[in-house]
């Protein structure tokens, strides 16, 4: 019997090591796998490369992981967010590396990773400082910039519903980066609000099939709360 549901955070986080590239889902506070980030902090791994849209808001979650000095490098589109001073302080002190990526390029680099595409050309960022040093090729008369696939060792994902095969459904704007990150990592770890019986999820509504999921932990924390 396939059962990807694990009973403890320690089981969920097993095998995550120092130096790992960790893809973290969520946009704003919606769809953000807070319990898994807390699990990562508890695990104590360091020297991490974190890929997320934002460099952590407030003091909790990603901001806390960074404040503890566990993150070597962050790859994101929007390092600044409301109440996020942790990243800026670390960055100014030279204690964290930053790679800024246009949001669509960030998503597409992970889609490429998940789909086995090594790299792609996009017109986004051509002629700007985010394309400096990158190969440019003219395609259909338009200059394109070469961007490489972005693979994760681990993806941390939040879902609304999951079954024991790891089939997932997301809620409203909680989908965001989660489905694409689930495809792009060697190990995909999911926290879910609800666990349902196998066969209960409508196959036509499953958004991430279990083939992309390794472990699921049940975290019924309720609604995201704006800060």
């Amino acid at each position, binding site marked *: 019997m396939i059962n990807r549901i694990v009973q403890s955070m320690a089981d969920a986080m097993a095998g995550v090591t120092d130096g790992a590239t960790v893809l973290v889902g969520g946009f704003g506070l919606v769809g953000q796998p807070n319990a898994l980030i807390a699990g990562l902090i508890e695990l104590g791994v360091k020297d991490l490369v974190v890929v997320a849209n934002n460099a952590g808001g407030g003091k909790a979650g990603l901001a806390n992981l960074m404040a503890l000095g566990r993150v070597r490098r962050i790859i994101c589109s929007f390092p600044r967010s409301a109440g996020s001073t942790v990243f800026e302080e670390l960055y100014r002190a030279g204690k964290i590396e930053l790679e800024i990526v246009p*949001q*669509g390029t960030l998503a*597409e680099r992970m889609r490429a990773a998940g789909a086995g595409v090594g790299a792609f050309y996009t017109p986004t*960022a051509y*002629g700007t400082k985010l394309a400096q040093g990158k190969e440019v090729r003219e395609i259909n008369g338009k200059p394109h910039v070469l961007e490489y696939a972005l693979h994760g060792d681990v993806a941390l994902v939040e879902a609304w519903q999951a079954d024991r095969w790891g089939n997932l459904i997301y809620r409203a*704007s909680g989908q965001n980066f989660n489905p694409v990150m689930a495809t792009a990592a060697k190990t995909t770890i999911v926290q879910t609000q609800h666990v349902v019986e196998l066969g209960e999820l409508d196959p036509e509504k499953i*958004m991430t099939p279990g083939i992309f999921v390794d472990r699921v932990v049940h975290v019924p924390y309720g609604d*995201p709360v*704006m800060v």
Partner: protein
Amino acid sequence: MNTTTANTTLAIKPWSRPRMAARVAQDIPEGWYVNLGIGIPTMVADHVPAEREVIIHSENGILGMGPAPDAEHVDPWLINAGKQYVTLRAGGSYIHHADSFAVIRGGHLDLCVLGAFEVAENGDIANWATSENDSAPAVGGAMDLAVGAKRVWVVMEHTTKDGRSKLVRHCSYPLTALAAVKRVYTNLAVLDVTEAGFRVIDMLPGLTREELQARTDADLHFA
């Protein structure tokens, strides 16, 4: 350099921010798929009449975004790219981030309305970083939107608070995209970006061409 400074105070009151948003909304026809940036662009949605079906896209995966809910009807799972609570219209849908940016980058949006620090007369736009030395600016989806939408309009004040023109010959801030902007709505005028440069297609009533040019770094052409 953008040294153009208005040395006289205008006798006429410039358009307000809601008025600028309404002026943009007036030009959006039914059936368009539109992405609205943060700031004045977000206000554009409030000025599209409900009976005109314009489908608003938000980068975080919403097609058919509706207005902000009242306090009793907040769905904590439904926020827009500005991280504000919003609603979903009948017919609306949710997509994931890679597909949401396929909407943007694949040329499926009819229009994107952005704010900007500067727009150059060739359509170059600078709207993400205020200096080359700003080492950690937030780009978000600005570069994808500026390149990907079928047309990019900018809505912004005509000048900075200290009177510098934001319509320039060449951008001095780091670029977001090259030759991307098709039209600019300011608090003084509406201008198309043409092969010849900025062409004024609408002006604040009572404002003279000379007064507008005096507040604009780039040369203006008049219809």
